[in-house]
């Protein structure tokens, strides 16, 4: 199924809209600190054209433009959070691969942990009640014979 990922990636070069735009070039900053921050930040941002790539990984022109824009903003002294706000103001929460915690995303962020705790609690409850509910039934003679045969076969049982 990965090939569909690839297909999606490939398609972002294909759609008519982006067929032959002028190629943008990354203006790599002379300041390694900015490049490092860009690297870290752009891993959490979504490329809007190739929608399933991070901004860091995308070759799309818009992604390159946005990277350059972020470099400029950082050079101007904006913090990471300010850069994020800048992008969210233009493209919405959609651009964030790490959804912000708010009313609509509370189930998303907390359900897994609630479920894990609930699962553990139910498990312990179940295990505590188990011996009372299960009674070992003594075997009949015929069953004993068959069982012994089986045990002989299954000596490798670990």
């Amino acid at each position, binding site marked *: *199924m*990965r*090939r*569909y*990922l*690839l*297909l*999606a*990636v*490939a*398609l972002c*070069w*294909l*759609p008519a809209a982006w067929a032959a735009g002028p*190629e943008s070039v990354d203006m*790599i900053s002379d300041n390694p600190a900015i*490049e490092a921050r860009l690297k870290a930040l752009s*891993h959490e941002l979504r490329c809007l054209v190739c*929608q*399933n790539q*991070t901004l860091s*990984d995308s*070759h799309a022109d818009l992604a390159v433009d946005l990277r350059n824009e972020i470099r400029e903003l950082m050079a101007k002294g904006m913090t990471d959070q300010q850069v994020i706000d800048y992008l969210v103001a233009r493209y*919405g*929460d*959609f651009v*964030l*691969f*790490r*959804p912000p915690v708010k009313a*609509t*995303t509370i*189930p*998303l962020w907390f*359900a*897994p*942990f609630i*479920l*894990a705790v609930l*699962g553990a609690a139910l*498990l*312990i409850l179940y*295990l*505590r009640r*188990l*011996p009372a*509910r*299960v*009674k*070992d*039934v*003594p075997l009949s003679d015929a*069953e004993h014979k*068959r069982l012994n*045969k*089986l*045990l002989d*076969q299954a000596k*490798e*049982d670990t």
Partner: protein
Amino acid sequence: MIPELGHFALIIALCLALLQTILPLIGAARGIPAWMAVARPAARGQFIFLTIAVACLIYAFVVNDFSVLYVASNSNSALPVSYRVAALWGAHEGSLLLWAFILGVWMLAVTYFSRSLPQEFVARVLGVMGFISIGFLLFMLLTSNPFERLFPAAVEGRDLNPLLQDIGLIAHPPMLYMGYVGFSVAFSFAIAALLGGHLDATWARWSRPWTTVAWAFLTLGITLGSWWAYYELGWGGWWFWDPVENASFMPWVVGTALIHSLAVTEKRGSFKVWTVLLAIFAFSLSLLGTFLVRSGVLTSVHAFATDPERGAFILLFLGIVVGGSLLLYAWRAPRVGMGGSFGLVSRESMLLGNNVLFVVAAFSILLGTLYPLLLDALGLGKISVGPPYFNAVFVPLMVPTVFLMALGPIARWKEASLPELAVRLRWAFGISVITALLLPAVLGHWTVMTSLGFFMGLWIITSGFQSLWEKAGRNGIANLGAGLRSLPRGFYGMFLAHLGVAVFALGVTVSGAFSTEKELRMDPGQSVELSGYTFRFEGVRDVQGPNYQAVEGAVRVSKGAREITVLHPQKRVYQVQRNPMTEAAIDAGFFRHLYVALGQPVSGGAWSLRLYYKPLVQWIWLGPLCMVLGGILAASDRRYRLLARKQALADAPDLGATGFAAAGKAR
């Protein structure tokens, strides 16, 4: 003519699938042996006609029959022949045909490896598989016919997507589908057991090797896909938590839970209801993945060729198959017995804990994958859920899983004692903790996560060898050889698979913490240093491929005075679909990869380049390969072959639960 033959073969396969479903299922319900006997020949016949259909489509690709729409859309006369064959599964219609064909392969396998099973059971299993086959064949014939003609015929094909023109495409989808579709066997066994009311340890023993083999294929498929993306997409990532990746990963997680749950059901007769539910889930998630990938409901896939009709069809089918099986489950499961008892601390309780964690993990992935859709459907806005979310949720769930993974194999069935476990594992634990605390600091980058990663890897390895020693070295060093030989393959399979997890964990940890990279502009002749390696950019030259032009760079890599290799990353433009493709060049070593990708030409022969040094990254794929080998080893265990010969178990379907419970006590 040939494409019509293929189309016709599909129709006959559909008729046989109908036959294979209706007669054996009714026959099993009413006890009519002649009707049940239809199952095997019908399944074999179906396989033959599916093979004919596949052969016809391959033929159309090989001879460049551009009067077939699917061939014209996905091939080209300049495309090398091997890719023309693989183009069969390069897009929607053909990959569906592959799906149906692989289902045929699994059905064929069931007809041959089911001789020792009761006829009624086999009839039900094949009947259920036939029903799945009906769904997919109908889907193909009604909405996605790969043999559809194009009139007038195209002069030339639109070519296979360049990203897919790679050796990875040839191997990855068939392996992945073998896994996906393979879970249909475990599913059919579960449904057959529910239908027949014989849900017991023997059922678990029958379905266990099938599940393990399907799981091994799925592991291999996902691994190949990850490796392929790593070198083909050109930025050195190996997992992206893309919805489509998640679609293949969820069945894997549940399948892993199922394998462990089946182990308990087989040995101890417990968790039967739970195991059956997992078998249903594993295959349901495979179907759900198919839906997600093909319907365009998520931003991933065919979003540019979205076809709601196709989506609606699969959703309907999904509803019938999964809804029907869950209904059957709700009806039959309450009557299934409890199985053997076990203590709060025992191997069973740990395996059950592992199951809970795996299921919560699968649920989290499902939630993250579908959440944007849920919000959108409720009109609450559009959000993205990406790698940062999945890492934040998945990793914490895997930490306790790995911790239990070391305890499980060493704990006793039925009743284990914590103090005793602690004493037995004290060395393993001590060595792991101390090494994990010190090693990252020695290597020069200590963080909590790195240390934790090392601990997980080492803890699995040391405890694994502890359990190996306890089992094989009981009679002293002198008899170690004999002890090792006496252990069953099932044990070695588990040992190897768990070791694979450790290898994977170490690979992820080390490559994550100690990788270095540089993205920079280089003039020809310029050198740059990265983690002790010198990369010298020698410039680029033009290269002509069979159906593409490329610019190929040369990067000479040396360490000190010693030359290591010359890497040749490429940037290709294919003749038909003119999108640029990045071909990274990798020097793949066991301990490190050197990875170079060409960026863009800057000016005056200078290029932007991405250089990576990635220690132990290879282990990320070697680990899963160990798991695959472990799975195959476990599935080939002697007791399954014995099972094929001896009827004892098949005659006594009710023995499992009580018998094995007592067996546990007797020891």
